[in-house]
């Protein structure tokens, strides 16, 4: 079974440019999450899709970030225009089931490292 796949693994762009990150979840996983790690360590929640719908996008930092999940399959996260503070590692994770209490067990992708110069 293929895991969660993210593209690109590393992207270097200049401030003001646009970058699109892609995540292919495990087939059949309805739940898809985006996170980012900034300042090296802390992992911040961005948003959660259930199939093609945004279940929770409370972590999206501002309107320069746009996430989509066409047809409930792969997802893209676009940053336009990119700023220096957007640099970090963007993680995607997917989950098939919710537990009885509504929690998820996540399978993570390797992450996409974004460097904005």
């Amino acid at each position, binding site marked *: 079974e293929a895991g969660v796949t993210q593209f690109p693994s590393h992207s270097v762009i200049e401030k003001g440019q646009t970058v699109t990150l892609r995540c292919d979840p495990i087939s059949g996983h309805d739940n898809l999450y985006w996170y980012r790690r900034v300042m090296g*360590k*802390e992992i911040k*929640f961005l948003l959660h899709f259930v199939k093609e719908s945004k279940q929770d996008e409370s972590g999206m930092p501002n309107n320069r970030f746009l996430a989509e999940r066409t047809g409930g399959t792969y997802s893209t996260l676009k940053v336009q225009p990119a700023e220096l503070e957007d640099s970090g590692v963007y993680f995607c994770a997917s989950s098939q089931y919710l537990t009885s209490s509504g*929690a998820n067990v996540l399978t993570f992708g*390797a992450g996409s490292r974004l460097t904005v110069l």
Partner: protein
Amino acid sequence: AQRVTQPEKLLSVFKGAPVELKCNYSYSGSPELFWYVQYSRQRLQLLLRHISRESIKGFTADLNKGETSFHLKIQFAQEEDSAMYYCADGKLIFGQGTELSVKP
């Protein structure tokens, strides 16, 4: 508001020593809590979850509702346990992470 807190950014211990990585949560009820780990050059992965009451490779974590804690304990730390450890709640909000360094 932050729901899961890991107060220690870095822990350094010697091989064979016990270690406890702290995690506190800040809401009431019956939370579901997880520990995730990221070893060097590997993906973030689930280590254990409290609802399973499981112990994996010498790692244990007990939910303490009185102290609102879910600390991760390693009985005898090994060099290969060196990694970033994240506590997370059922809404998949992660703590700040604790870097564990086990020295020979």
